C-alpha cells in the first residue's frame, strides 16, 4: 500500500553547515536524503518508517572527485554515472566502474549515489565489494567535526553501521595502486540489467614471479553485510595460483561467508556460485 505522502517531510536547508547543525540539534529526528533511489521505492511500497528527511542532493561540498598522487577522493554524492564515466577511476579502479555500470538502469545510475549505496547498507550493494577490495576509507562529518574510518570496519551487522545519527558520509578515499593488480568484478543475478545480485564478487591480486604477492577478495549478498574473505586470502597469499591452492581457498571461504535463502536465491546456490567465482579468479591468475 502507498504511503501517506503528506505525513512525510523533505526539508532543504541552504548549506552543509545548516544541515549538520540541524542533525546535531535534533539527532535521530532527521535522516539525509540524496538520490532517493532506495528511499522512494520504500516510500511507494508503504515501508518507509522514518518521516523526516533532510535533502542533501544540492550540497556541493559532498560532490566531485579530488585526485592527489596517493589517493582518489570520491564525493559521497557522486552518482553511478559520474563514476562509470570518470577516466582515472576507469583506469585505476575498474572494479568500482564495473559495479557502477551493472547497478540498476541508466536512470537509476543518474540518481543513485555512492554515499547512499553505502549508507543504505544493503548486503547486496554492488559497489561495496569493490570498495572493500580497494581498502576504501570513509570520511564521516557532523557539526562536531570529521573522522576517517576504514570501510572494512563500517558495517557491523545487518543494516548496522558505524555512523552516528548526526553524521553523514562526506567522501570516500581510495589509495591509488602503485603497481598493477589483476582484477575482476562479477555480478550474478537473474538477468543482466536491473537485477539485484544473488552474489557479487570483487577480486584483486598482485602476482609477481608466479606467486600471489597480495590478494583481496570481497563478496556481496553472502552474509549480513558485504565481507572481505580474509580466511581465503590468508590461504592464497604467497602461493602459486594452482588448482590445489584454489580448492583450499574455496574451503576456507566457508568460514568467511554465511549465505542465506531469501526471495532471490538459496543458500546452497549462493555458496556454490561464490566458490566458483573464487576458483575461476584464482585460476585466471596463472595465465
Amino acid at each position, binding site marked *: 500500500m502507498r504511503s501517506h505522502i503528506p505525513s512525510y517531510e523533505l526539508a532543504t536547508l541552504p548549506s552543509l553547515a545548516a544541515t549538520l547543525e540541524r542533525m546535531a540539534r535534533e539527532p535521530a529526528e532527521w535522516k539525509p536524503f540524496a538520490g532517493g533511489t532506495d528511499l*522512494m521505492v520504500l516510500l511507494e511500497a508503504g515501508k518507509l518508517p522514518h518521516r523526516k528527511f533532510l535533502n542533501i542532493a544540492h550540497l556541493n561540498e559532498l560532490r566531485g572527485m579530488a585526485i592527489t598522487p596517493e589517493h582518489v577522493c570520491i564525493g559521497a554524492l557522486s552518482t553511478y554515472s559520474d563514476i562509470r564515466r570518470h577516466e582515472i577511476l576507469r583506469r585505476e579502479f575498474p572494479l568500482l566502474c564495473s559495479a557502477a555500470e551493472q547497478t540498476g538502469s541508466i536512470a537509476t545510475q543518474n540518481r543513485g549515489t555512492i554515499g547512499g549505496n553505502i549508507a543504505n547498507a544493503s548486503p547486496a550493494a554492488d559497489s561495496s565489494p569493490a570498495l572493500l577490495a580497494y581498502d576504501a576509507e570513509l570520511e564521516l562529518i557532523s557539526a562536531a567535526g570529521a573522522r576517517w574510518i576504514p570501510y572494512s570496519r563500517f558495517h557491523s551487522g545487518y543494516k548496522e553501521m558505524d555512523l552516528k545519527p548526526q553524521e553523514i558520509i562526506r567522501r570516500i578515499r581510495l589509495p591509488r595502486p602503485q603497481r598493477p593488480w589483476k582484477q575482476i568484478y562479477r555480478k550474478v543475478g537473474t538477468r543482466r540489467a536491473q537485477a539485484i545480485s544473488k552474489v557479487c564478487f570483487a577480486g584483486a591480486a598482485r602476482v609477481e614471479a608466479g606467486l600471489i604477492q597480495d590478494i583481496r577478495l570481497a563478496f556481496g549478498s553472502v552474509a549480513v553485510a558485504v565481507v572481505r574473505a580474509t580466511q581465503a586470502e590468508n590461504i592464497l597469499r604467497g602461493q602459486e595460483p594452482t588448482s590445489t591452492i584454489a580448492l583450499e581457498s574455496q574451503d576456507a571461504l566457508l568460514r568467511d561467508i554465511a549465505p542465506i535463502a531469501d526471495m532471490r536465491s538459496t543458500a546452497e546456490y549462493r555458496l556454490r556460485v561464490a566458490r566458483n567465482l573464487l576458483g575461476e579468479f584464482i585460476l585466471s591468475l596463472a595465465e
Partner: protein
Amino acid sequence: MPEAARKIRVQFRVNGCGVEVETFSMARLLDVLREELRLTGTKEGCGEGECGACSVEMNGALVNSCLIPAAQAEGAEIRTIEGVADADRLHAVQEAFLKCGGAQCGICTPGMILAAVNLLERHAQPTEAEIRDGLSGNLCRCTGYARIFASVIAACRQTEPRA
C-alpha cells in the same frame, strides 16, 4: 493519521516553460507532472524505478520521475514526452517509432522515446549493444523489443551526418 507536513512551493521549468506548484515535499515528480500540470504523457508503470514508463529528462539526464520527490525538482529543467516534438514536427525517434511499429499498447512508449532521445543525444551513432544498454531500464510487454531497437536504429540513420 500522522501529523501532516505543510505544502511547499516548488519552482522549476518543464519543456522550456517556468512553472510553480504547491505540493508536498515528498510528492512524486510523476504525480506533480500528471496531476498538477496535466502533462499525462508521462506514464506510471511499476512505481518503483524498475520499468522506466515514467522516464523524463532532468537537467539533461534520464531519470525515473516516480523516484524524484518534488522538493528535489526545485530549479530543475525537466523535459517530458510533450517536449520532444518541435511544435508540429515530430522528433526523428518519434517518426521512426511510427514507421517501424515501435509502439503497441503505448504505455512504455513515452519513456522508451525519452530514453532513446537521451541516448542519441549522448551518442549520435550508438552500436546495437549501446542501444540495448541505453534502453535496458525501459520494459515493454508487447513488442518483444525487436521493433523498438529497429526504430532507434532507423532514427540514427535519419540523423546520420551527410558526406
